[in-house]
């Protein structure tokens, strides 16, 4: 069984780092990071991660635009996207579901549960 690969997209370096350590330590997944939407598109296309953990409020290209671009691109269309965001007002959540996002995880997140939440949303079995 190959190691699952996750792309964490966040302009906040600390979030990237913490998420990376959490997922690697708890689930043993391989974690890639990107600091902007633009970078995320490139890395996703090149690395073909199993899932993308995407922040919404980012300078430049925001998370939702990034998601749309990923969907539009045939090379990244199939990659499931989960939002990891501080912008989780009720109206937002409704909006996200309609857009076809697989799940939304709120910041601050539980570091030990993060991997589990992702696996659940994507029907992955946790080893």
């Amino acid at each position, binding site marked *: 069984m190959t190691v699952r690969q996750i792309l964490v997209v966040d302009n906040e*370096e600390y979030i990237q780092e913490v998420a990376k350590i959490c997922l690697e330590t708890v689930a043993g997944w391989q974690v890639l990071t990107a600091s902007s939407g633009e970078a995320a598109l490139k890395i996703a296309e090149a690395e073909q991660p199993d899932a993308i953990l995407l922040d919404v409020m980012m300078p430049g290209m925001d998370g939702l635009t990034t998601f749309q671009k990923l969907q539009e691109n045939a090379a990244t269309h199939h990659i499931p996207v989960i939002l990891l965001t501080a912008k989780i*007002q009720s109206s937002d959540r409704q909006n996200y579901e309609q857009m076809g996002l697989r799940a939304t995880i709120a910041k601050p997140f539980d570091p030990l549960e993060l991997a589990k939440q992702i696996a659940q949303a994507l029907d992955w079995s946790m080893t």
Partner: protein
Amino acid sequence: MTRLIPKPLIVGFGLAITAVILNGWLSYQNINTLVANEQKEANSQLILNQLEQILSTIKDAALGQRSYLLTKDNRYLVSYQAAVTDINHHVASLQQGVEDSTQQRQLRQLQHQVNNKLNALQNIVPWQQQDLSPAIQPDLLAQGQRILTELQQIVTEMKTREKNTLAQQVKASQVSFQQAITVFFLVALLNLGLLALLYYVMRRNFLTNQQVQMALHQAKADLEQRVSERTAELSQINHQLQIELDERRQVQEALRISQARFVGILDIAGDAIISIDGNQRITLFNQGAEKIFGYSAQEAIGQSLDLLIPPRFVQTHRQHINEFSRGSAQSRCMGERQEVLGQRKDGTEFPAEASISKLKLEEEVTFTVILRDITDRKQVEQMKNEFVSIVSHELRTPLASIHGALGMLASGLLKTDSEQGKRLLEIAVNSTDRLVCLINDILDIEWIESDRAKMERTVCDLADLIKKAVDRVQSLADKVNVTLSISYPPIQLWVDPDRIVQMLVNLLSNAIKFSSAGNTVWLDVMDRSVGSPQDSTILVSVRDQGRGIPVDKLDSIFERFQQVDSSDSRNHDGTGLGLAICRSIVQQHHGQIWVDSVLGKGSTFYFTLPIGSTSQNAEAIGIAQKTVQPTLKVPQSQGGYGLEKTTRPARVLLVEDDTALANLLIMQFEHQNMITFHAKTGQEAIHLSQQIAPDLLVLDIILPEGDGFAVVEWLQKHDHLYNTPLLVYSAKDLSESERNRLRLGDTEFLTKGRVTLQEFEQRAMALLHKLTKHEAVETNHDSSTDPSCG
């Protein structure tokens, strides 16, 4: 009145009066008859007397004649002649008294006999005188005797007749008298009867009248009583009516006032109040509605309500109003299901909050719509939502790092002394710092911007404040290898020292964070004292050599959470509130803050502070500067050295050694609300140019310590100054080659004495207006400032 006198009474009176008149007339007639009879008696008596006299006279005459005849004495002739005269006289009298024909005839006989007798007598007399024969005397005497007898006979007859007449007359008189008496008494009796009758009638009438009078009097009294009662009643009613009238008048007045108030309230209400009839035609359109929709009441009244609704909603609106019309509710909010949009006269739409109510008066329905333009509220709501959203994000982000890092460490999956463990701790600590800074800043700005905030001002030395601020940012500068070039002018200020230090720290740390290693950050202070200390301000500038700020961000970076987005991975971002706090602090001190930025070259933040009453430091930094209050909104010019479309005033650097002339020019610029800096020497000009990056340089050529050419040469060599607009203002005409040496940006040449001050000002303004920079502006800058929060 005739009615009051009874008819019988009138007849009675008439009869009585007639009887009295009749009686009078009859009496008069009888008296007349009596008098006539009396006269007749007297006449008869007279005639008898006359006859006696005649007879007697004749006898006298006869006697006289005889005597004469006998005696021949003439004396008897005298009596004879007198008797003749008398006889004639008596006969004439008798002729007058005799009336009836019989007597007349007798009288003529008598006269005849008298005449005969007299003739007879006369015949004797001449006889005597002529001695007639005595023979004839007896004849004559006998004849005389005979005549006398006849005469006596006639007289006797006449006497008898007269006596008979007299007796008849007396008898007739007596009868007549008795008749008169009888008639008189009869008539008098009749009169008495009539009078009695009249008395009776009158008395009866009088009594009746008296009764009637009494009845009338009673009736009149009753009537008066009733009239007075009625009058009292009426006056009471009148009084009541008057009261009611007064009340009604008061009510009317109150109503009028109330109506005026109502109309006034309607009119001044900020909300639109619009009434429509059953056909949805506008019948009332208040001032609020005029203001909100842009239509005048005149234009709107009579129009359909559709006028005020965007066409795509017209149908729905009509339907809603019809539904509401049929429904039982008296009023309801409009737009419960969706937002109400209004349409102004100019076609623009706006969000509105509206309620509708209906009033049914005699089958006529009036709908009243009260509508409020909520554009501003929507904007505020949106801003609030955005703010909450940003704060939420800004709080959650560091919290996520802390929570994640500590959670991992607490789980025991990682050792704290492992490489990853240490890193997580570091992340947690830094994020905690950031969170603390954020919370402090949020509380700070809320406090400073609230009305409760009071600057705790004291007299403080600006140099001290700068030192404190530098102490706090020095370590940060050292860390990133940025040099600080700070001036410490000993200027006394009347400010809140903590707030000013906070602001200086914000600006310095900002500048340091956006500088590259090896760059310098400058802090300079200019005292721009003019006249009294109250008018004086200091200008503080903090300049960096960072990437600069895009033109479109120059204004907004002073707003909350308006960092210039950073796309590189350097973690510059602070709280996003630092510059907003700076602006609030400056405003609380009645100063101004703005920024100039040249892309790729760096940014300069400026703020001014009024020195207040404590200034004794004019010329403190050795540079003579004059200013005017910088309040101008620079005429619409785009970009450039700072003449961006902001409220920042234009800055003019005037280089002129003649103080009098300089003051005149400063006045001119002051007139245009520009900030004017004044340099007297070439050196000062160069120094000031560096500090303030003027929007316009006004340059005299002949100067102490380096002339105008030197200044221009220096500026030409400096990237952010070489393009400064230049107005050369020289005493002498310049040659072509000289002019070529004196070029910066847009350059104009004027010769002293050939232009008026107004022209000068116009040229200067024209240069300022021309300022349009075309440099692309793409740099990053962040407004967050506190070094410890960086």
